[in-house]
């Protein structure tokens, strides 16, 4: 459905307002967990961990469809929906890392799953075509060799998720009137 038509639809605007707020909530909770990882493991600055990240081969959930000039709602929404599902799985590594904050991590996983299904259901309501991207190698994290690598892994799950949410937020806001 052409973008113009979409952004005029009241229901769609309500969907956007609600899920912009939802995304802000999730971003706030991710930031809270990043502060915990910084306080607990002294892992606070991404630029100090680039070599290890490269060593661990950490990649991010694709969101290029939400960047491109030829912004396509269906493709972008599909990538947001899929990325949220994958982060829902990867957050399990953070839960293991922070046994004292299981509640907050589980809330984050619930919210990620909820936002993903909100987008899925809204796409269905709008009759948008669902694009499903291959998710090879994107399951929950394999066992890591040391505590340190596990901690760095958790650090990057949160850092990448925060960036992912930032991009998704801008895409949703782009569609609001």
């Amino acid at each position, binding site marked *: 459905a052409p973008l113009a038509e979409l952004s005029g639809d009241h229901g769609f605007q309500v969907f956007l307002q609600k899920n912009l707020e939802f995304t802000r909530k999730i971003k706030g909770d991710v930031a809270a967990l990043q502060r915990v990882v910084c306080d607990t*493991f*002294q*892992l606070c600055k991404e*630029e*100090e*961990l*680039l*070599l*290890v990240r*490269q*060593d*661990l*081969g*950490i*990649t*991010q*959930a694709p969101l290029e469809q939400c960047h491109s000039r030829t912004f396509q709602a269906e493709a972008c929404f599909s990538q947001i929906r899929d990325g949220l599902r*994958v*982060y829902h799985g*990867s957050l399990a*590594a953070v839960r293991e890392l922070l046994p004292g904050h299981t509640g907050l991590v589980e809330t984050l996983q619930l919210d990620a799953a909820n936002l993903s299904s909100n987008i899925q259901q809204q796409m269905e309501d709008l009759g948008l075509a669902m694009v499903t991207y291959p998710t090879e*190698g*994107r399951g929950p*994290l*394999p066992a*890591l*060799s*040391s*505590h*340190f*690598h596990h*901690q760095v*892994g*958790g650090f*990057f*799950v949160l850092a*990448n*998720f925060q960036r*992912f949410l930032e991009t998704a937020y801008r895409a949703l806001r782009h569609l609001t009137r």
Partner: protein
Amino acid sequence: LLLLRPGGTLGCASVAVGSPVVPLGSAITASCTIQSELCHGLEQGKVRITWMLDNEPVDGSQHRGPGGTEVSNLTLPQFNRTQAKLWCWVEWNGTKQRIGMAEIRAGYPPAKPFNLSCILDLSDYGLTCQWEQGADSHLPTSVALKCAGSRAQAVTGCTPQGGRSRCTVPRRLLQLYRQMEIWVSATNALGTTESEHLCIDPMDVAKLDPPALQSIQSIPFQTDCVALAWEVARSNAHMELQCELRYQAPEDPAWALVTGIVGQAGTMQHCGFLFGMQYRFQMRCRRSSARGYWSEWSLGRNYTTHEK
């Protein structure tokens, strides 16, 4: 999002320490080994390794290691923190990179728990034991109350919650009316220790419910004697008890004590009271085996003796 390239290995760097848990004040040795060809962009021969203990730089000595590795060794003669992170850094593309880390904890073997005592609660027949933990070992220490029947069958017991020094052994794990061996065991990375072993029959440490003073009256009218009717609590009805009575005149701070009252219920007589005086009476009981605890004093009961 940690999306590992399928099969990626993590051999670029590793930090090894002599032991992750050491006695407080002892020396620490560590090494950081870098396999530069496994770290993208780290040029062989130009690797400069540095160390930080939490946020403090510490000096290591770097040398070429086997198979083209660079190794830095570090010795901390006296490690006085109870917990720290030892970071290995390298310079890379003009930035300093955290490349490895080892967590170090220091403390003491667990202190010997002492002052172990137990009480059996007759409402649910749970045996609650408490003890003193002794000095903090600064290390994660698991503490458990152990409980073995006289034939040293299975060792059961309970685990204190939330760092408390007490817990309750449920009825189903107890052997009533027979000696049981009870002790506390504490274990951490530097060792295990046990408290003194108590040998007690749980019933001997039963906390009795207080008796009830049913009625008080003068007998017969002219004497300085008083008759009291009393009754033990239902939960103690099957026990042989010895009880004692105390009474006190309002201004008099001291309590007078009448001991050796035996039996389940009944009336007793006591003389020597002043006329026209209000007295306050209380009673308590203990198992006649004299082991175990007195019940609390019963609810007080006032009685004013008749005028002369």
